[in-house]
């Protein structure tokens, strides 16, 4: 296999601790513990390695990255290394005290997730009373400080009807960008799929609303829309292709080609504690396994889109079909696509969605999130 080009971005999951309990959280079901988290010096070394590999951006995420007390030091380090720094946060810990040092450290951009436009429903979905009000306050603080803001609106059957209000809210908050992120079904979201998946009609309606808003708000608000791919004809180019653009680091330092990659049991992951990032990018088993097209079977192997969507998502193929090397069942050319579609139809047609299974640490080992 030829050597890969440089990665674009490092996704730094600083911690899996989070005060919220979103039932669609993209973290794995087995959350990592605080005692296993990388220390500041190791993160800083890895940030330098990423920058010298050619990464251009770093996304600080989690869990809730703001529970790390060394966040400012890490942002400053990444900024000094020349990386574009983005903070992906629930914002419930972002206040007048925490924001200024981050800004001084060189933070370029803040992305705040909202669960709904109605406070009560938003707090219910996040499992965190009072969260919505804190988020709005933090968003205004971010804009007041002149920092750029993206609103990440996670949408599903229990809030999709409020999409028009969500767009207005993003404008009102002064966001430059709105990400209408319809839930993708991995990790906790897969567990909660029946409570979350909208009907196909609801999705097409959302597509129309976004298209109209985009036109109307051109030059003022950029709207990115991620639709649930169960209803798509072709899969998304997951992560821009396996191990082509991103390196995702878990709190304990495992290097993954995609945040959900641990759902594929036969992959071996390297830890940045043991191996330099450049070596991992080029040679790690998990990165090499599905990089490029040589691993593909039919129908992908001879498909003209194989270097456009790279066969779709490996983790979804694993989760749904039990075979990580199969064509993503979201693709209509997959023999398993009709079954996936049928499943989506049945679950979304349930009159009353099942109760959420909130994201949390396994019982008896509760990990309190402290600021």
């Amino acid at each position, binding site marked *: 296999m030829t050597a890969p080009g*440089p990665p674009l971005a490092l996704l730094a999951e600083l911690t899996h601790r989070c005060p919220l309990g979103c039932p669609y959280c993209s973290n794995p079901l087995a959350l990592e513990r605080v005692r296993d988290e990388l220390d500041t010096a190791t993160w800083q070394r890895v940030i330098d390695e990423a920058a010298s590999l050619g990464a251009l*951006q770093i996304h600080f995420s989690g869990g809730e990255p703001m529970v790390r007390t060394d966040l400012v030091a890490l942002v400053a380090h990444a900024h000094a290394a020349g990386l*574009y720094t983005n903070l992906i946060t629930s914002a419930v810990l972002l206040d007048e005290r925490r924001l200024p040092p981050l800004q001084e450290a060189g933070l*370029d*951009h803040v992305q705040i997730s909202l669960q709904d436009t109605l406070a009560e429903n938003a707090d219910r979905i996040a499992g965190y009373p009072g969260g919505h009000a804190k988020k709005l306050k933090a968003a205004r603080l971010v804009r007041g400080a002149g*920092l750029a803001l993206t609103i990440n609106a996670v949408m599903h059957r229990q809030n999709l009807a409020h999409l028009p209000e969500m767009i207005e809210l993003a404008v009102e908050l002064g966001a430059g960008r709105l990400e209408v992120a319809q839930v993708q079904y991995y990790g906790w979201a897969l567990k909660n799929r029946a409570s979350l998946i909208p009907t196909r009609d609801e999705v097409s309606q959302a597509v129309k609303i976004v298209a109209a808003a985009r036109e109307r708000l051109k*030059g*003022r608000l950029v709207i*990115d829309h991620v639709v649930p791919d169960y209803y798509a004809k072709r899969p998304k180019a997951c992560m821009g292709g396996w191990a082509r653009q991103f390196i995702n680091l878990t709190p304990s330092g495992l290097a993954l080609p995609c945040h959900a990659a641990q759902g594929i049991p036969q992959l071996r992951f390297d830890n940045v504690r043991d191996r330099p990032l450049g070596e991992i990018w080029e040679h790690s088993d998990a990165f090499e396994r599905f990089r490029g097209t040589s691993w593909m079977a039919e129908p992908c192997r001879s498909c003209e889109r194989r270097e456009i969507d790279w066969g779709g998502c490996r983790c979804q193929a694993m989760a749904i079909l039990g075979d990580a090397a199969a064509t993503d069942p979201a693709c209509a050319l997959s023999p398993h696509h009709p079954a996936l579609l049928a499943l989506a139809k049945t679950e979304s047609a349930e009159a009353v969605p099942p109760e959420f299974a909130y994201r949390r640490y396994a019982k008896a080992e509760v990990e309190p999130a402290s600021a």
Partner: protein
Amino acid sequence: MSTTTTLTAESRPGLSPHVRLKQDRARGGWVLLGPERVLMLDDLAAEVLGLCDSAASIGDMADVLAGRHSAPRAEVLGDVIEMLQNLHDKGLLIV
């Protein structure tokens, strides 16, 4: 309610606050960076964006570029407006 701004020779564009113009040593050339966007720039685009400082008007920029490349100013102006309008619509420039 249309909020689209149309750029003219009098507009004075600058990079949006969240956007960085950066030399990309690993790949060569320049890139424009936003939170979820990485735009690889060709030489001309990089040159034009290097002039976007919210002080110079697009007309001023066309003067400079026409001089540097000994190209007809009207043509340069048209090309620059088209390119910058596109970036503005993507939220990467402010005027």
